């Protein structure tokens, strides 16, 4: 009897381990405030101190090349007007994931679709092995190709336009941006998100951010329409209920 039970348990756990059942579906949202500054920020009026979301390098600092510092300083100074997000640009990756707004993940056998509430940007991520676009075509949200590594969805993102920023503090990239994202469920309602970022024209080497995502479990929760409107001067602006 005891041996029978042991065999069953072994078979049971083997079957469980081998069954590829990565299910990322649901409405998710980033925790924390990495969207404001990936490197974190000290406490200030009305705002708690935030740890850096950068886990590599261990310093928590983005490894900018020395010749990128000038652009970074200018972006930071002018962030109140120069941030492309304020003009309703699609946010890019990984910023779309980190914003304080929900996004919904859908899956089918050959693709993962992510719809962001923020300006209804979306990504169709094929997981059937089809290749990236060639160089020379650029997208605000990049060109995403996915694959499953065990229970982790790995997404390779290339072909970025250089205009988007990485956060609200002016952290930026160039046209050689390459992002590798890893989505791993850690419990029913939590997911770990990591993005490794490289761009040899801006950074000295690759670096990685990690942010926990939480699933919305409120009954009947749904994304609502976040559409920009022109203001009195004809400039596109976010409706006030979405400003954080």
């Amino acid at each position, binding site marked *: 009897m005891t041996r029978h039970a042991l065999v069953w348990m072994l078979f049971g756990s083997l079957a469980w381990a081998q069954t590829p059942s990565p299910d990322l*579906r649901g409405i998710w949202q980033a925790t924390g405030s990495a969207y404001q500054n990936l490197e974190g920020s000290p406490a200030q009026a009305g705002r708690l101190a935030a740890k850096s979301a950068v886990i590599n390098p261990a310093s928590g600092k983005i490894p900018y090349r020395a010749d990128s510092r000038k652009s970074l300083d200018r972006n930071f100074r002018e962030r109140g007007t120069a941030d492309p997000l304020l003009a309703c*640009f699609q946010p890019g990756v990984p910023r779309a994931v980190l914003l304080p707004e929900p996004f919904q993940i859908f899956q*089918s056998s050959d693709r993962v679709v992510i719809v962001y509430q923020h300006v209804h940007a979306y990504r169709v991520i094929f997981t059937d092995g089809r290749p990236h676009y060639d160089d020379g075509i650029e*997208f605000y949200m990049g060109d995403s190709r996915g694959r499953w590594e065990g229970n982790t969805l790995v997404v390779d993102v290339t072909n970025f336009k250089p205009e988007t920023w990485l956060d609200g503090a002016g952290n930026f990239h160039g046209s050689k941006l390459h992002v590798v994202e890893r989505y791993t469920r850690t419990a029913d309602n939590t997911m770990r998100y990591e993005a490794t970022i490289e761009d040899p024209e801006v950074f000295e080497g690759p670096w990685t951010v990690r942010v926990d995502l939480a699933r919305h479990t409120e009954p009947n929760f*749904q994304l609502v*329409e976040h559409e920009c409107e022109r203001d009195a001067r004809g400039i596109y602006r976010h409706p006030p209920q979405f400003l954080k």
Partner: protein
Amino acid sequence: MAATLSAAFNVEEHGASYGTPAGPSVIIDPPGGKLPYLPGMRERALDNDQHRERDPVGQCHMHGVPRVMFPPFPLEILQDGNYVVILAETEHGVRIIPTDGRPFLKDYSSWNGDSRGRWEGDTLVVEVRGLNGRSWLDQAGNFVGSGARIVERFRLTGKDTLNYEATLENPSVFSRPFTVRVPLRRRPADVELLEYGCIEGERDAVHLPPVDGERR
């Protein structure tokens, strides 16, 4: 999926003109294929046609229902559990349609509305509320007003063909409900939606005149 082109230009029968190919009416009810405008409303549509800069799509807004279903750009339809998702390439428009019987949102106003779906045999039936009343029906200035209610019916008619019908009830603009029918055709499996940008880098918006209902 992609719709036949002519409905995007004008849902009524129309001859060819500059930038517009001729096309038949897609209105199957009322008979005769004309929009059943209330008195004075057709004049507004004709005035829109002379002021296409007012077209909300030209102002980077999503098309609204039913126009979002027949743009001159492809759509992607995804079914996943309790949802049907429709992605429009143009204006990166999105419709997320729950089919789990949940109630409509209260006090909701939006371009693409709040949709609830259900299956009747092999037909997906979608009811749409919460529309903002600012959408056009086509490039020719035909329009909907506030308080519109729409019932859409999606049904596969072959392996690669889909029949789309929408019945629109909008007593502030039309004297009776009307129905449009547009066939959609499936694109080959290797076709991918491309990214569409409109607001990004827009430098001319300041020169555009205001559209109805826009805060100025």
